[in-house]
């Protein structure tokens, strides 16, 4: 628009002001909505002190680490104080992870699998165990596909597909009597190995 028309502009009416304000507010809400959704989705990727970070600080990879009993200074919040917890961090890029644990009738034992980015993708208790044992193998989708083509005789082991190569296994033990100290006994026999 090189030439500005010499016609005098109509004075802005109150209605124009309101429309302008309404449009601006609507724009603010649209931006806020987008920012809100994006930030909620980004937090699991960016949170510096999420469960995996805490597990990494407590448990070296591929080793089962028993957490101290839940107390006022527990490193992991929102734990059930009755439950004894052991953690095992894994990286499936070095190979599938085998998880075994023996079962004690007096103790509820649960094994749950968490991905690096906060997805608890599988969990079971000793009720699903076989012949007094829990025996599982965690693999990536590629590792399962490779095994299926190579193996003529599929193994009996229970295979679990992990959504991400990194993650951790959580062993929870709850004793009917005797508290977390008694429950921790069953965790000492558990294993997780690459």
């Amino acid at each position, binding site marked *: *628009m*090189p030439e*500005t028309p010499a016609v*005098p*502009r*109509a004075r*802005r009416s109150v209605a*124009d002001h309101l*429309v*302008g304000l309404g449009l*601006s507010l609507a724009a*603010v*809400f649209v*931006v*806020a909505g*987008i*920012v*809100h959704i*994006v*930030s*909620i*989705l980004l*937090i*699991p990727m960016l*949170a510096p*002190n*999420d*469960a995996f970070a*805490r597990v990494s600080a407590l448990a070296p990879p591929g080793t089962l680490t028993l957490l101290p009993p839940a*107390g*006022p*200074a*527990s490193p*992991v*919040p*929102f*734990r*059930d*104080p*009755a439950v004894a*917890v052991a953690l095992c961090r894994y990286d499936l890029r070095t190979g599938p992870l085998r998880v075994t644990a023996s079962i004690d009738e007096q103790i*509820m034992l*649960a094994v*749950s*699998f968490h*991905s690096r*980015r*906060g*997805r*608890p*993708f*599988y*969990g*079971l*208790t000793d009720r699903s165990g076989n012949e007094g044992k829990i025996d599982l193998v965690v693999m990536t989708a590629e590792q399962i596909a490779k095994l299926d083509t190579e193996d003529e005789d599929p193994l009996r082991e229970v295979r679990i597909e992990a959504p991400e190569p990194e993650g951790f296994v*959580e062993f*929870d033990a*709850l004793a*009917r*009597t005797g508290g977390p100290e008694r429950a921790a006994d069953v965790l000492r026999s558990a294993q997780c190995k690459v």
Partner: protein
Amino acid sequence: MSAVLHARSGPAPGRSAPSAASGRRTRHGPSRAAWLAAFLRRIIIGLGGVGLGLGLTQLCVTHRWDVAAVHIGAWTFWPKSGTAEIDPYARAIFARSGELALSAGEGVVFTAKRDDRGDRLDRHCTYRVAGQVPSARLWTLAALGTEGLPLPNAADRHVLLSSSVLRDSHGDAELIVSPEVQPGNWLPLSGDGAFLLTLHLYDTPIGGGGTDASKLTLPSITPLGCNSHA
């Protein structure tokens, strides 16, 4: 919107300038002002939107607000938080708190931050937790601070366990949550301020979104009185 912006820049000083040499200047003057106004407006909209969006996220995460949460009486739970289909809000909340999500195959957890009257749970008050607990192999009731850590107490007792609580002749248990020593099933409180109650159910058919949560019956949380807030 740009028409509105032009209108606002109104009769600009540049317009009264002689027109021959002002081909550029007329273009320059008012359009620069308009450009600046539009630019400022966008900055304000952008900053306002970002601030509001991040503020909302912060509120959701710190107050553990989740659109996918199910409320039953005073209790809240997330049916899908223990599965790979965990919703983005629960993921964000857990990522910030650093907690370990209870997997659906293991059990479910119900959390209460208010009593049945709708008042915030207060560490100076005594509460009775009683009534039916959904079927589970074991359940536990714990009192946690708002940051999710057990409350320090002289008895070093942080939790009541279904297999060791005292029950009446009907098999029902009455649990007393209180800062004062209580006979029976006592869960101690200590310190000042708010707290949370968590009810964990292990090996239960609930969870993973398989059951209709609205049909669940959970224990009541009845306030029985408070100490003076000395």
